[in-house]
Each structure stands twice: as structure tokens, then as C-alpha cells.
């Protein structure tokens, strides 16, 4: 199986602080890969390497290679806008823009000029994207409503739909359920299983049960190091590293 994302000896510095240390991993296509670890271990930072959101942080520097479909995304000639279209991101707090539901979904199409002033096409993609996140039936009559007035779960689904509209390959999810109640969390997890059929998903989570439920591969991070990476089942039943074992058995963290 061809990996979608590969990192080789990835180091990331915020000024003098080293946030990622020599991370080597490869993420398979159309699989869910979860990254777990205690707060501040660098798991969100690692996720933000894949769409280069760390570029927004002043003083952030990267060494090593990060390959997406075989191409190093940290080459100077990388087209950042295309990269971020290809690698979408869902945030911890749902962040739909304070505009209508419809405009949120077609936002990506508009900024990437993927439509030719064709209203029907826009509408079609909006419907497709909302259907993909199982929101169409709830929202088809409320497309003009302000997105920030939806429930948190709906907002998070809308944020996912907003990504799907531009047809990404990879979905990065940064603790996508931490602002949601258990029922909503369950439904978002189901959605991830559905999305897995078409997209490669990388999820950062605090919640080990969630990693166990949703992911095929799991990586455990500690103090900027990727301690262990492998099939989720093995990581949770027979961890190879003592630190992983201590973390997943809840001895700390």
C-alpha cells in the first residue's frame, strides 16, 4: 500500500525550543491514523506540519522531509494554497465563519475559483458536501441561516463539509470532538468511518478510547518524540515501549 504522507527525520523548532524530535512515520491511504499523547507532547504541532499551518507561527523552523504523495511539501516552491486545498483541517473548536451555511460550504470553491458563476453547480456541490456529513436533511431549508447559530455538532459537521467541497485528499482533525457531548462525539466518529472510504484521515486526540474506536494506526508521542507507531490494535494490546504501556494503562497523562 502506497503511503500518502511520509516524514523522514522531521524536526521542528519554535525558536530555541524543539517541539518535534526526529519524527519518522508513514500514513496509509484511506485509513484513519490517530496520534495520542499527553498535552504539550507535540501532537497538534505534528498535525500542523502536514498543511504547514505552523508557518503562521513566528520563529517556527523545520528540518527533515515531509512527503505528500512523494513530494516534499517543505520545498521552497511548494504552492501553499494548493497544499491546503489538498490537506484540509478540522479544528478543536468548530469554527464556521459568521456567514450563512451555504456561503460557508462554497467558501473554498470561491477562493480557489473552482466555479464559473454557475449557481446550480455551487448548489449541487453544497448539497453533496452536506449529504456527505449527513447534514442535508437537517439543513436543506436553512442554508441561508447564520452558521454560527447552529448547534456545536452541526457546526463541526459543517466545517467538515466545507473541506469536502474542495475535494481534498487528506483530512486533518485536531481533537475534533473535544467541544462536543458524548452523543455528538459518537456520531462524528461514525462519520469518520464513512469518510474513511474516500479520504485519508489523521486525527489528534486526547481520548484514548476514541483512538481505539476510530483508527487503524496509532502513534504515541511524548515530549516531541514519536515513541511508537503501529496498528492500533497492537499499540493498545501489546505496546512495544514501556512508556506507551504506562500511558495507555493510565499510569499518568
Amino acid at each position, binding site marked *: 500500500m502506497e503511503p500518502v504522507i511520509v516524514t523522514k527525520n522531521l524536526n521542528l523548532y519554535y525558536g530555541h525550543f524543539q517541539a518535534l524530535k526526529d519524527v519518522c512515520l508513514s500514513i496509509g491511504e484511506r485509513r484513519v491514523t490517530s496520534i495520542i499523547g499527553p498535552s504539550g507532547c507535540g501532537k497538534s504541532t505534528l498535525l500542523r506540519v502536514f*498543511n504547514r*499551518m505552523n508557518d*503562521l507561527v513566528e520563529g517556527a523552523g523545520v528540518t527533515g522531509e515531509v512527503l505528500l504523495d512523494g513530494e516534499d511539501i517543505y520545498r521552497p516552491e511548494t504552492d*501553499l*494554497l*494548493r*497544499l*491546503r*486545498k489538498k490537506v*484540509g*483541517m478540522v*479544528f478543536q*473548536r468548530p*469554527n*464556521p*465563519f*459568521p*456567514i450563512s451555511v451555504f456561503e460557508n460550504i462554497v*467558501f*473554498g470553491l*470561491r*477562493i*480557489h475559483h473552482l466555479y464559473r458563476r454557475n449557481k446550480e453547480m455551487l448548489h449541487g456541490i453544497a448539497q453533496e458536501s452536506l449529504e456527505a456529513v449527513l447534514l442535508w436533511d437537517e439543513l436543506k431549508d436553512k442554508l441561508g441561516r447564520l452558521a454560527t447559530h447552529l448547534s456545536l455538532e452541526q457546526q463541526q459537521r459543517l*466545517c467538515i463539509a*466545507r*473541506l469536502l467541497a*474542495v475535494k481534498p485528499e487528506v483530512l486533518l482533525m485536531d481533537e475534533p470532538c473535544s467541544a462536543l457531548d458524548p452523543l455528538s462525539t459518537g456520531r462524528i466518529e461514525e462519520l469518520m468511518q464513512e469518510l474513511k472510504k474516500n479520504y485519508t484521515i489523521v486525527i489528534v486526540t486526547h481520548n484514548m478510547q476514541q483512538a481505539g474506536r476510530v483508527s487503524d494506526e496509532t502513534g504515541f508521542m511524548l515530549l516531541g518524540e514519536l515513541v511508537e507507531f503501529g496498528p492500533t490494535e497492537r499499540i493498545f494490546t501489546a505496546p512495544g515501549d514501556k512508556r506507551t504501556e504506562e500511558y495507555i494503562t493510565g499510569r499518568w497523562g
Partner: protein
Amino acid sequence: MKRLKEFIVEWAVKASGIVSIVLVALIFFFLLKEGIFLFKTQGAGGFLAGRNWYPISEPPGFGILPLVLGSLLVTFGAALISIPLSVASAVYIAEIAPGWLKEVLKSTIELLAAIPSVVLGFIGMMTVVPWIRSTFHVPTGLTAFAGSVVLAFMAMPTMISIAEDALHSVPRMYKEGAYALGATHWQTIRRVILPAASSGIVAAMMLGIGRVVGETMAVMMVTGNAASMPKGILYPVRTLTATIAAEMGEAVQGSDHYFALFAIGIVLFVMTFMVNMAADLFLHRRRG
């Protein structure tokens, strides 16, 4: 003991609230009472739509249409100049300028807001007025346009700093969301940050315009004070405010002239009230 303290504080707060409302009501009532006398001798139509303001001729003319148009012309011109400039400056300060420059600009602009209007009027008289005269080859630079320019510069510091606050308080997560979708900096500003801050920006603009409508001193110094029907932006005009300020001292108390000036006050009050109402309506429509 504690309850007594609570009681006193609660009442003190309540009383100050009531006092300020009563004071405003009294001012309005006084204005109305003095102004209404004019309509015993003058029709409201002749007052509002009359084209001649000759308060001390015989017979006197109390038509304020030239003054209303003068005010509107100056205000409209000032809005046209100041709104685009201040939105652009606010966007620059909030989103584009590097950290150190941001601080410098913000404090400089706050400093500009503190310049007394008479000083601005004086500067306008010395710079804007001659500039207009020589650039547009008009007999005098004391024109509606000069008033618009001076008032625009007067309103801008307030407009910029309030609009900048609104832009600055747009949550970071919106920006991140837009960047993560591959938006450029400009697309993020135009499609996410400006809409998110729009109610605050509109409020800032309205506050600025409210100030322009009510401003007296600077506008009196540079607009030429000709109480005739304005022929254009490059002709002298006179505003409602300037009329009151210039004539109140010489109007005989209890005369029609005196009451007419109070009636102008009512018109001015209605105008600023409408600007504020518009701002309010817009704010609520956005939230609703």
C-alpha cells in the same frame, strides 16, 4: 449591614441612571418648547422647505432648506472621503502592519483624535482652503468641499480606532479556518474578517458621521458661511450647526429669529437621531 450596603449601592446606581434619562428628556423638552413657538407665526412647510434664510430682513425669511442641504452636502462629502480611508487604515493596522508599527500607528491615531476642532479648522483654513482655490481655480477656497475634507480628517481617528478594535476582536479561529482552506491573506480579510467585524465597523462609521453632522467650529471656519442654496461642492455653504453658533449671540431673546434657531436645533437633533437609529437597526439586523 451587608444588605444595607447592597441596598445603597443598588439605589445609587438606579438613581444615576434615572437622573441621566431625566436630564436628556429635559433638554429635549426645552428644545421642543422653545422651537415650537416659531410655528405660531411660521408654517412648518415654509420652515423646512423654504429656500430663503433672511432672519433679520423685513419681512424675514425662515426657510432652512439651504442650511439642511449645506449640512447634508458637507456630511456626505466627508463620509465619502473618510469611510473608505478609515476602513482601509483599520484593516492595515489590524491585519497587515508589523507589530511595532501597529503600536506606533494606534497611539498616533489616538493622539490625532485629541486635536481640538478649532485647531483643525485653523489648519484647514491655512492649508486646505488655499489648496482648493488654486487647484480648482475657484474664487474662494471656503467651500463645502473644504468642510468635507476637514471634517473627514476630524472623524477619521475615531472611526479608525473603533473599526480597528472590531477587526482585532475577530476570533483567531476564523482566520485559521480560512488559511487552512487555502485562502490568501487578502481573501481571508475580505471574505472572513471584514464580514465578521462588519457590525462593529458600521457602528464606527456611524459614530464618525454623527460627529460630522454635529460638528460646528471647524466647519464654520472653512465653509464660507453663505446661507444660500448650495450650487455644488465647490461653492460656499452654511450648515445648520454653524447657523446656530453664528446667530445665537445676536438673536433677540423671544423673537422669531431666536425661536427659529431652536427649531433648527430640533431638526439637527432629528438628523443625528436618525443616524444613530440607522446604526442601531443595522447592528440588530446583523445579530438577529
